[in-house]
């Protein structure tokens, strides 16, 4: 069914989506709106079984199997005093996109539906909570927070996506046309429906969709930002560099520090590059603690990092600790900066690894533009490497999975000799999922295809 129709008729459903812009921030907000909102929260969050309206409860959000997904804070806003005017549950979780996705998936499994773009705002307007102008302003505000370059990169990727979807869709429409011709032009001397050939096509389409859904991981990195960890021995100026980078005329998306991991994380767009800076609080506070703990935490942080930023102190010679930090990043993409360029340089940069280090001063800001330029290159490299088409959000991923499931069902139906007009229901189901991806509505082109493919009409 067309997504347009869903907009009209889905008003009574309960919808769920990640409401913070994708991947930005240490805290991610998930919103559930609709009649089932409170019930879904209670199912996955035991502490939410009895709560006061507009007050928050904290606890572990579990999936259907009882696995804890994250430590979250949840708030119930009963209708009509909520953003949408319906019962709304807002869940604040850690900003890790993977965790947010899994929380959303658990809500989907409990009867919610993935919200379409702008659907919360639409409900707010529909329920008289907001007027149209406000709704448009909110969208503009959200849009403005994505850096230009990242947006372009995303658009390119989505362009690549539709280039990849189109041939899949095309073959599916061809297959539908073949089935339709077999149903509607029975008296027309057409070749009989070849179910074996149809099954082969369905298998091939299924494989294509499968490989497309595997691109979801990379797309998520881009949409969520590159995760960059700042490393360095104590007192090299990590924190001041961190503050310098995030502190000045940057689009700071969120400033809520993480609570469970002792990692301070900020999402910044530098030259349009979405970067998530993680300053390991552990290292920061280990100056008077056993060194191993600091190193262990740095290792932990590195496992989730895309890029490491190693900070050295230019006013002091390299020592064993520096060498240890440099050894840690050997296997991962990294940038080395030599801080304190405002002081006399006493460091010797002869090793190959650090020859291209950037000299800067966190104190004066000297050298920062060079660092920013390097960040820009990092993202460009990342974009060149991976497949040109990638799924960048849960909505797309869900659509591809949905199409896959529908085509699998059609394949089963074919094997059981189900009549073609029923198998067609599955094929159309798959097509409408693909239409969600390309933003097109189902049109008459099935009949066009039949007429161009087959000589029909007595």
């Amino acid at each position, binding site marked *: *069914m*067309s*997504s*347009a*129709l*869903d*907009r*009209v*008729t889905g008003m009574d459903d309960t919808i769920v989506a990640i409401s913070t812009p994708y991947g930005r921030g240490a805290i991610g907000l998930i919103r559930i709106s609709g009649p089932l909102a409170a019930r879904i929260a209670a199912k996955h969050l035991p502490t939410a079984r009895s709560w006061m309206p507009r007050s928050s409860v904290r606890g572990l959000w579990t999936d259907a199997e009882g696995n804890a997904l994250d430590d979250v804070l949840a708030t119930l806003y009963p209708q009509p005093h909520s953003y949408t005017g319906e019962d709304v549950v807002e869940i604040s979780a850690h900003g890790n996109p993977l965790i947010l996705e899994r929380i959303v998936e658990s809500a989907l499994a409990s009867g919610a539906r993935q919200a379409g773009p*702008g659907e919360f705002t*639409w409900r707010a*307007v*529909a329920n*008289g909570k907001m*007027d*149209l102008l406000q*709704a*448009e302003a909110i969208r503009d505000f959200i849009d403005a927070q994505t850096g230009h370059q990242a947006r372009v990169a995303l658009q390119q990727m989505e362009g690549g996506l539709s280039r990849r979807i189109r041939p899949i869709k095309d073959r599916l429409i061809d297959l539908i046309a073949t089935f*339709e011709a*077999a*149903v*509607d*032009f*029975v*008296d*027309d*001397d057409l070749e009989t429906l070849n179910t074996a050939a149809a099954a082969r096509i369905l298998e091939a389409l299924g494989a294509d969709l499968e490989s497309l859904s595997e691109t979801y991981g990379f797309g998520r990195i881009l949409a969520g930002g590159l995760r960059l960890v700042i490393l360095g021995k104590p007192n090299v100026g990590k924190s001041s560099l961190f503050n310098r980078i995030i502190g000045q005329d940057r689009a700071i998306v969120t400033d809520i520090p993480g609570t469970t991991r002792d990692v301070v994380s900020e999402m910044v767009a530098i030259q349009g590059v979405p970067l998530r800076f993680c300053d390991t609080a552990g290292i920061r506070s280990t100056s008077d603690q056993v060194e191993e703990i600091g190193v262990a935490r740095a290792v932990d942080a590195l496992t989730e990092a895309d890029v490491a930023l190693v900070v050295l102190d230019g006013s002091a010679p390299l020592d064993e600790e520096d060498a240890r930090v440099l050894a840690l990043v050997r296997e991962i993409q990294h940038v080395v900066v030599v801080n304190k360029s405002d002081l006399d340089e006493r460091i010797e940069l002869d090793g190959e690894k650090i020859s291209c280090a950037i000299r800067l001063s966190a104190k004066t800001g000297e050298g920062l533009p060079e660092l920013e330029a390097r960040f820009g290159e990092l993202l460009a490299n990342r974009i060149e490497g991976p497949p040109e088409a990638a799924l960048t959000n849960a909505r797309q991923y869900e659509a591809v999975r949905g199409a896959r499931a529908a085509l699998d069902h059609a394949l089963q139906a074919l094997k*059981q*000799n*189900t*009549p*073609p*007009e*029923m198998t*067609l*229901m599955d094929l*159309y189901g798959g097509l409408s999922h693909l239409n969600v991806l390309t*933003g097109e*509505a189902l*049109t*008459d082109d*099935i*009949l066009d295809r*039949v*007429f161009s493919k087959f*000589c*029909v*009409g*007595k």
Partner: protein
Amino acid sequence: MFDEQYDVVVIGAGHAGCEAASAAAKMGLSTALYTMNADLIAQMSCNPAVGGVAKGHLVREIDALGGIMGVVADEAGIQFRLLNTSRGPAVWSPRAQEDKAAYRQIMRRILERTPNLFIKQAEVVSILLADGQAVGIELLDGRRVRAGATVVTTGTFLNGLIHIGERQFTAGRNGEPASVSLGNCIRDMGFEWGRLKTGTPPRLDSRTIDFGVFEPQPGDETPTPFSFRTIRPLENRICCYITHTNTRIHDIINRNMARSPLYSGQIQGIGPRYCPSIEDKVVKFADKDRHQIVLEPEGVDTHEVYVNGMSTSLPIDVQREMLSQMRGLESADMIRPGYAIEYDFVQPTELRSSLETKKYERLFFAGQINGTTGYEEAAAQGLIAGVNAALKTKGADPLVLGRQDGYIGILVDDLVTKGTSEPYRMFTSRAEFRLNLRIDNADARLTPTGRRLGLVSDEHWEAHRARQSRIASTRQRVDTEKVNASHEFFTSRGLDVRERPALKSVLLRPEIRLAELIREGVFVADAGLRREDILSIETGIKYAGYLKQQEREIEKVRKAESRLIPEDLDYSAMSGLSREIAEKLTRTRPRSVAQATRIPGVTPASISILLFHLELRRNQRRNGVS
């Protein structure tokens, strides 16, 4: 001022006009049916057949509503086939060869016996307007007839122009005059109009055909009637014959292409892609070295044979040459040549869902004037237009069938929502709820509506109720009873079933048919249960999963259909809508949000914007009142 007066006037006594007049008269309104030739009422201009895939569904639905096409087609039918039986029951569809002369006579007899219905032979030259309403018609002889509502069902007659090779002449059908005055009157009324084209093949003399060389296409052993009311057994009285064109014929066509008015540019109207002329097939599918031809007798008392698949506008000498190259037709004599005809149609987006024009109240269009093709499509619209003309005269709300109610609903909705650029024909693929729109449940879907309107007679209604209760009681037994697993039916087939399995679970096996279980005595059915009843029961069980899935989709549409859009909504003032989409919405003026979603080019995002504005408007109204 007026010489005569009727509640409803119908212009044209073709398949649309007959249904329209019959419906209005049955609803108790004095109805005049105008035709240029009273001997040619319900003439089949083209092939001698009714029904076919999707078209057979339309006939069933017309019949279920209390229309007359099914009854006439059964009585005049001379060969019956149920198509698509190798597919699922949702796309089974009846088709029948008709005796053309009998069809006309039976239809005329039925119309003449309908109280309140008056057949009139006269040419209508104009529609009389006053205050933006149609108030009557004017005849060629000068009489003016007042009408509470006027239904125009003029087929191919509006400015009809026949092409045979290089020759062209005005005609409504070959041998009958076109409606030029009325055509020009309608052109001047300000509608968006255009030209369409359709064609028909040559008719041959059966005495000059060697049938022995063809593959016979017989009727079904047990004919399936169109009408739920046809009880008497039907009989196959003729056989059709299948043959094919060959490359010699294709060469002749290619050689003479410059003489084809289709390719010389002489014909401007757009023809149907699914019913192409033979020259079209040869050009567009050049890789095919043969095309199917079916020889269909036009009746039992005539030698005339219809050459299905050879529709053409090539010159007569070329038609002759083509036929001479076909085995069995070498010396065939042509009674009538094939020809193409161009005619005026009005873009159906000019119509409301009731088939009343948006520009003029009390004026209704049905059939080919709306850009459709086919007897069945015409009749279905005629029925709807006739009902709504009657309701309009009575001052009642119009009948609008939904897409989930039947093919008739789809037909009308497609036309008024999307318009058409070629002659529109029904296909099952147009039905998004195809599984539910079956021939076996057309009565359950529509007969109560027909009864409410006054189209369904007491006798018809009683038969309907009896059938529904037979189905319900048997269905209940099937749902609850268990069968004997040691019955020979299972043992002889080596079927492994549990001890005393539920009948319903046995029926879920694709290879087991209810009719068979009854025949073999596994299940003892109530006396009086008919073949059709068994089919309805079985389908409900076997395809329950798919039907349920569809039911959920139907519910969505119902909801969206119930969100009505005020007629005076100003789309151009709607912030956020692109001008292009605002124009599309203004042109179509959808009656519901569901209909708006179906307008080509209207995006999901623009539907959201439309919903915003509808909601805002509602809030403003609400606040304004309180």
